[in-house]
């Protein structure tokens, strides 16, 4: 093995009009290493990956592959050079079945199947149309497709962000083995647990420029965070939720009361309450019915049985606007679902104001401006590219989806994985925000794919497995081991090893910063 870098990029620059996505980024990856690419939202990580793989063209910069300057102009070129990306958005063709997708990219089928099994999906139907496959599985298939051609450099852009813990864990294992086999991986994630469990070195980007390269060793997280954010932050970030802060469930009737909710085979007999001023967490592995639960509460689909009471009176939602009328707002995890990408930040935030026909008339611009900028300020949205939401970074887009309901002053917010793909700083803000909302007597239902968030934000957590609520914990008891066990449908108290994440002790240095 040589010590010459496999991939060496220097001085990469990319401007989008006035916005500089990358100013002076460099990245050097050695053979056989798992190299983390880190940075806050909008730092330019995805942009760099896209440039390295020919998906977009850099304005300037030099890229050497195995010491040679290669002209990578399209993903097909990158593929030939042995560099395979898994982008932040799924890349399977929605209307083709999996097999055709493989043929399209010239991926060998058998290795692909093997990888898919390895990654924890034993029963994939290869003739299934991609459109009908859940997002998390699609991400895994994307990865398997890249692995199947044995790439020299694998570039994973927030691969684990949309994955439930069980799948994420398999992915991490596989990625680690790639490094062991002498192949390189560029790994983007906002989760320090993953970085420290997996990576050898990390390159940190800030505002489009590389600000440092560090070896991953215990205790390095703080330095990374420091570099990423450019400021020294408090050593121990206190949990957003103070231990003594008890739900102000003011004895009155619950804000939201769900009884025996039924939805085909997806939800079974789901009952729980959400009090005013309470944040209730929902924890589940992928596809246990949490999507359906949120969709039903948001008025997107109609339950087949059971009742929902809001403030003690029964409601039936046939459209999201009914739910909104009842003060219930839904923030989807996929921001592409929530935002009008070509419209301005302002219009996106103000969208609910015009929804009802009686609000179709002239807009009171001044009043709207006040409300909207209040929300923007509250979430500290980076508005440099506010003319079109699509030009914001992923994290800032996510903030807009929440800002909308802050502006509309919704009483209950259903947050479906709101911190997916969001940097540590922003995450803290969101946690704080959710707690503040609770403090104002609002109620939040909060699904997350990251366990430690449960402790930071929630008062209570309900665990769903197979469409049923299998357990409800007060937050004090919701340590990761307990949550994990419940999420796998194991009875409380049973001792079982459920993978590497269970080994990470709560409060270990690895996650102090995240």
């Amino acid at each position: 093995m040589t010590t010459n870098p496999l991939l060496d990029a220097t001085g990469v620059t990319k401007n989008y009009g006035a916005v500089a996505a990358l100013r002076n980024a460099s990245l050097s990856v050695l053979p056989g290493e798992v190299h983390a690419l880190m940075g806050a939202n909008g730092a330019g990580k995805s942009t760099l990956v896209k440039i390295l793989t020919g998906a977009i063209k850099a304005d300037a910069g030099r890229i050497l592959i195995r010491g040679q300057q290669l002209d990578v102009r399209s993903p097909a070129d990158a593929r030939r050079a042995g560099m395979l990306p898994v982008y932040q958005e799924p890349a399977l063709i929605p209307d083709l079945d999996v097999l055709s997708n493989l043929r399209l990219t010239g991926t060998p089928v058998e290795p692909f199947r093997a990888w898919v099994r390895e990654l924890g999906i034993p029963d994939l139907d290869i003739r299934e149309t991609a459109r009908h496959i859940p997002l998390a599985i699609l991400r895994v298939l994307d990865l398997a497709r890249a692995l199947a051609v044995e790439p020299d450099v694998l570039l994973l852009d927030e691969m684990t962000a949309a994955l439930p813990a069980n799948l994420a864990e398999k992915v991490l294992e596989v990625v680690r083995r790639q490094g062991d086999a002498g192949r390189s991986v560029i790994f983007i994630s906002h989760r320090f647990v993953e970085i420290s469990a997996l990576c050898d070195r990390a390159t940190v980007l800030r505002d489009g420029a590389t600000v440092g390269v560090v070896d991953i060793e215990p205790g390095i997280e703080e330095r990374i965070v420091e570099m990423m954010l450019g400021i020294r932050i408090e050593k121990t970030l206190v949990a957003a939720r103070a231990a003594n802060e008890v739900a102000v469930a003011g004895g009155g009737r619950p804000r939201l009361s769900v009884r025996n909710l039924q939805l085909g085979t997806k939800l079974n007999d789901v009952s729980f309450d959400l009090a005013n001023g309470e944040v209730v967490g929902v924890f589940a592995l992928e596809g246990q019915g949490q999507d359906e639960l949120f969709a039903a509460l948001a008025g997107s689909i109609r339950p087949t049985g059971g009742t929902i009471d809001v403030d003690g009176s029964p409601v039936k939602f046939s459209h999201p606007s009914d739910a909104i009328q009842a003060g219930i707002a839904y923030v989807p995890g996929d921001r592409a679902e929530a935002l009008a990408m070509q419209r301005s930040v302002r219009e996106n935030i103000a969208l609910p104001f015009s929804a009802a026909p009686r609000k179709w008339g002239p807009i009171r611009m001044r009043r709207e401006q006040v409300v909207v900028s209040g929300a923007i300020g509250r979430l500290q949205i980076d508005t440099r590219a506010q003319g079109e939401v699509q030009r914001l970074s992923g994290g800032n887009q996510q903030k807009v989806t929440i800002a909308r309901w802050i502006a509309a002053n919704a009483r209950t917010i259903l947050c479906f994985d709101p911190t997916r793909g969001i940097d540590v700083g922003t995450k803290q803000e969101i946690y704080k925000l959710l707690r503040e909302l609770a403090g104002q007597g609002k109620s939040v239902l909060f699904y997350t794919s990251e366990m430690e968030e449960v402790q930071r934000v929630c008062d209570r957590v309900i665990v769903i497995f197979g469409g049923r609520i299998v357990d409800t914990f007060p937050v004090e008891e919701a340590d990761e081991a307990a949550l994990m066990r419940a999420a796998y449908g194991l009875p409380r108290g049973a001792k079982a090893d459920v993978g590497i994440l269970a080994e990470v002790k709560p409060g270990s240095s690895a996650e102090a910063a995240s």
Partner: protein
Amino acid sequence: MSRFLRNQGWVAGLFALLIFLFVVTKLIQPGYGSGDFGSLARAVLPYAFAVAAQTVVVIAGGIDLSVAAMMALTSVTAASMMNGASEEYALFVVPFVLAMGLVLGALNGALIVVTRVPDIVVTLAMLFVLQGAALLVLGAPGGAAAEWLKASVIGTVPIPGLPDWADAWVPKALALLVVCLCIVWIPLRRSRLGLSIYAIGSNELAAFRSGVPVARTRIVAYALSGLFAAMGGLSLTISTGIGAPIPGPYLLASVAAVVLGGVALGGGKGGLLGPIIAVFVLRLVRTDLTLLAIDPNVTAIIEGAIMVAVVMFGAFITIRGRPLGATP
């Protein structure tokens, strides 16, 4: 099985509708026979090619408003070349005109790629350009077609081993249609190029990121569309014996049949079989209306209503049939 129904249910339903219409036709006009079926096949011919042309680009996520104008141009070119020429000369004319369709189609695609103007606008502009070119080739309907070409759509195909009464139901026009479509479509469908066409229609960004040469694939899709349109233009010249520079009603008909045939406007879905069956359905409806001597003005109403009703029905069953629990 359920996947087959999900993918092919629409085509199967359409086919059932076609059979039903044949039964109705037989009831209206008990004398309806193989000769009349031959007439139907001949009427279908230009429409079927127009629809094939439209289908390819719609699957690739585009639309081609210049289909009818392209047919007019290729038709007048063929007719004026064959005017006064020998029978053998047509052997050269046919491939020439097909190549011309291919090249002009590719030009459509190249203009879309190079100018980055939306396809609907580029092909709208090309509609005017091709119409103009057709008028320069032939100022008025005219020209001629070789006799052997004209004969190639009249009569039936004798199939060895089949009794005469069965042969009578295989008109040459139908055989010609099937052969021409299959020669292009079947190899395409099986090739990576075919997959690429579906891919760019389904999700262009994802296709690009999967290594599909998006621009080249789009040009190829339009070139194939041009090829089918040229076949349509030739079939017009063959069946009428002349070329007409003013485009026929094939644009609207092709869009309607594509949608009736279960190919989603927007791309990525569907096949060629559905739209072709839809063409037969639409033509047979016209035959039935003529057989019933319905007031001609009501015909337009009925045709429009069928189009709207069938598509609404299709939308309705997709809304109802959406799997429970899928997040809308």
